[in-house]
């Protein structure tokens, strides 16, 4: 890493350490700071960040300090709700939980601010997303102030989706560090929707961490939309521990931003569990989206499915790295992974690396990856039937992208996503 960033972070640290000592989280914050001082942010050639030079990008920001809460109106919040869908919503105001603006029933679950956690709950933070796993997780751990702790008790089914609205407005590249912890006990069921919203065009560095525990036979879904300003820089670390017979499904739509890096890790810890990861990225301009996913099969009889699709226009760049680990004990694993891309312009770049690491012999694992352009023959077929070229192109692109939306189980939200995607495709 460069000295510039290192010094900047160091200076910020002093401020953070001073604050941290009085907080509940002084221990993990201390760990995070130590880790960062030792390892720094990833260097330009670090394998994991080879195609996504986040550290370099951060150098262009001059104001690397924690962003503070802004004035947010209730109307602004309401305008971001999803039409025809009754939700409980939680608001992040520049990375801090804003209880006043949030509205939730706590029916069959409970929400806590990080400031009012019990001692036991406090120790859970950082137990799934470990500081040593990723430098940006460490950075978030050092910086976060007030996060959201959600608890779904044993056997409870949360009927209304929980919408997390992530409002961001920073001043010249300040760091915004939202943190979410979800504790899903056994047999719990819930669906989360997260929306990332930029309030203006000022650059910021959104560095979020979400930790999710999916208890025995629990079923959790997590949908996320990244539709930010074209100056937004985001690093997102999402880690989930999936226990026996549990299911976890994630759907990520990345539509806009400057540089977005998503690290999604599923630890399939016991037999019978299932991890599903779906993603769609529709990029133009100079947007750079990097999806790094990691599925770790540790025990027998677990399944994972992964499908990421991308359409890249103009000077955009897509990066996909899917890792599947199958440990020695994980016999009878089924793991599937696929990444498909369409390049629409000469200047778009795709770097993809579907990776399998397998130590068990009785497994079925496969991965596939394709990159190409729209099928000329299909286009011709449609044109021959009187459909204009642009419309035909739109139809084909939508047919390609639509598959991802099929994995969204809430109809109203699915409709909302389809509208967003169509609107987006119209502009590509």
């Amino acid at each position: 890493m460069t000295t510039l960033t290192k010094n900047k972070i160091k200076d910020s640290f002093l401020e953070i350490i001073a604050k941290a000592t009085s907080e509940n989280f002084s221990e993990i914050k201390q760990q995070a700071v130590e880790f960062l001082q030792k390892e720094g942010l990833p260097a330009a050639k670090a394998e994991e960040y080879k195609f996504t030079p986040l550290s370099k990008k951060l150098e262009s920001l001059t104001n690397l300090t924690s962003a503070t809460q802004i004035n947010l109106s209730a109307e602004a919040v309401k305008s971001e709700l999803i039409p025809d869908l009754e939700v409980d919503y939680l608001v992040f105001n520049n990375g801090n939980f804003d209880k006043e603006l949030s509205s939730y029933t706590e029916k069959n679950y409970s929400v806590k601010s990080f400031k009012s956690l019990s001692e036991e709950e406090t120790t859970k933070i950082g137990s799934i997303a470990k500081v040593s796993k990723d430098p940006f997780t460490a950075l978030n751990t050092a910086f976060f102030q007030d996060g959201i702790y959600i608890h779904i008790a044993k056997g409870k089914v949360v009927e209304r989706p929980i919408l997390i609205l992530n409002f961001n407005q920073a001043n010249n590249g300040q760091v915004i560090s939202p943190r979410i912890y979800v504790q899903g006990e056994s047999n719990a069921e819930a669906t989360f929707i997260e929306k990332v919203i930029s309030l203006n065009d000022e650059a910021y560095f959104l560095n979020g961490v979400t930790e999710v525990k999916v208890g025995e036979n629990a079923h959790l879904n997590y949908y996320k939309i990244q539709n930010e300003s074209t100056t937004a820089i985001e690093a997102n670390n999402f880690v989930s521990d999936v226990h026996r017979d549990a299911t976890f499904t994630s759907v990520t739509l990345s539509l806009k931003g400057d540089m977005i890096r998503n690290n999604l890790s599923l630890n399939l810890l016991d037999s019978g569990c299932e991890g599903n990861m779906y993603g769609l990225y529709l990029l133009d301009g100079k947007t750079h989206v990097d999806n790094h996913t990691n599925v770790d099969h540790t025990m027998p009889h677990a399944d994972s499915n992964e499908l990421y699709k991308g359409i890249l226009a103009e000077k955009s760049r897509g990066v996909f790295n899917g890792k599947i680990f199958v440990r020695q004990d994980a016999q009878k694993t089924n793991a599937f992974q696929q990444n498909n891309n369409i390049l629409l312009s000469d200047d778009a770049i795709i770097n993809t690396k579907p990776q399998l690491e397998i130590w068990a012999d009785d497994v079925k694992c496969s991965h596939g990856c394709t990159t190409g352009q729209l099928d000329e023959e299909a286009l011709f077929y449609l044109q021959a039937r009187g459909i204009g070229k642009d419309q035909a192109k739109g139809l084909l692109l939508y047919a390609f992208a639509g598959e991802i939306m099929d994995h969204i189980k809430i109809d109203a939200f699915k409709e909302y996503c389809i509208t967003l995607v169509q609107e987006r495709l119209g502009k590509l």
Partner: protein
Amino acid sequence: MSKDNQILEEFTSKEYEHGWSVDFEADEAPAGLNEEIIRWISAKKEEPQWLLEWRLKAFSTWQNMTEPEWANVHYPKVDFQKLKYYSAPKQKSKPKNLDEVDPELLQIYERLGISLNEQKKLQGIAVDAVLDSVSVGTTFKETLSKLGIIFCSFSEAVQEHPELVKKYLGSVVPMTDNYYAALNSAVFSDGSFCYIPKGVRCPMELSTYFRINAANTGQFERTLIVAEDESYVSYLEGCTAPQRDENQLHAAVVEIYAATNAEVKYSTVQNWFPGDKNGKGGIYNFVTKRGICAGDNSKISWTQVETGSAVTWKYPSCILKGDNSIGEFYSVAVTNNYQQADTGTKMIHIGKNTKSRIVSKGISAGKSQNSYRGQVQVMKRAQNARNFSQCDSLLMGDRCGAHTFPYIDIQNPSAKVEHEATTSKIGEDQIFYCNQRGIDTEDAVALIVNGYAKEVLNQLPMEFAVEAQKLLALTLEGSVG
């Protein structure tokens, strides 16, 4: 299950067939690596000044490089100062032809089943045999030279065709390319040189046979193949080494240059000593192989059957520079016991309408680790590039690993790139199907593995295909997982 274990046991205890060594007087360089040694090797080979300078430059580059650690292999580091960089069987005078070659040397090759004498009589393959650091003999030289084909040892080429060597040496694999290529550039002792002139179709298979005999030596050979416009050559390479307790280093460089409309087919059957069943000893096989399709419509095809070596680190690559050029890579890599293989290919599409095809079949058994690592890169101006990659892994036994690391980097929207990979063991239903029809389990496994590797074995020239099939059968016989 107990029968399976027994069979597995049998299979893992199978001894390495070529593990013997022959004692004869050798001319060796003292152990250690420094400028003096390089000067010594260069003087020994009576090399021209430019080559010595080239070596020294490579050496100073190497000194500033660090050993790569990104490969998925783990092994005790090589102490470069303990190795001997030159070992040649002592001969009274330089042999003019095969009849003058020391009979003891020829015997070594007889034992390996490569009779240079017989080869001389039989029509078929021209062989260049390399023992430790020097080439001991090349067959069919006269026949080939009538067509204008140059096929000789590298040292001979340096003496007799310096202009060609100077032009092409390091043009495909520059000395700065990587750690082991730099080391090889500094200390390479011999190897083969092959030049096919314009419009000539080489009438026979050319072949090099490498053998490490001496202890504590590293083998650093260098192969350079130049195919001029509209020429064709098929080249084979085979290798074995004696069974020794310590690890030996083999760091070779192979360069292929294909001009317009030229086609080069390079096949390897690699059977270096893989170490014993406890993972002791064995060859470190750190090889840089690269070909450039420099002219339009040219084609380079790599086929490899990898069964030996303790650690393999090898990525035969193609730079598809000429328009419409084609690169192919077919590989079967088998690992057993404690063997580790990190192998694959790189296809770099630069020219228009370039095509590449990758078929990699990994088979891992015992406690081995088998990785495929490949890159397909489509540059911005490579219009209509097409790639198809398939890498399959077969696992036998629950202590082995199979890994895939494919990198796909595309910068042109007209590229069509497909990659698919599967990992599995031999299906119980497949075995059951065979059993049902009266084929016992062991034969069924052989049948399935053979079918699994067929796509690659079919690419080998006849003479090699037989050897490869034998090797495969020997390595995997009875390994019912």
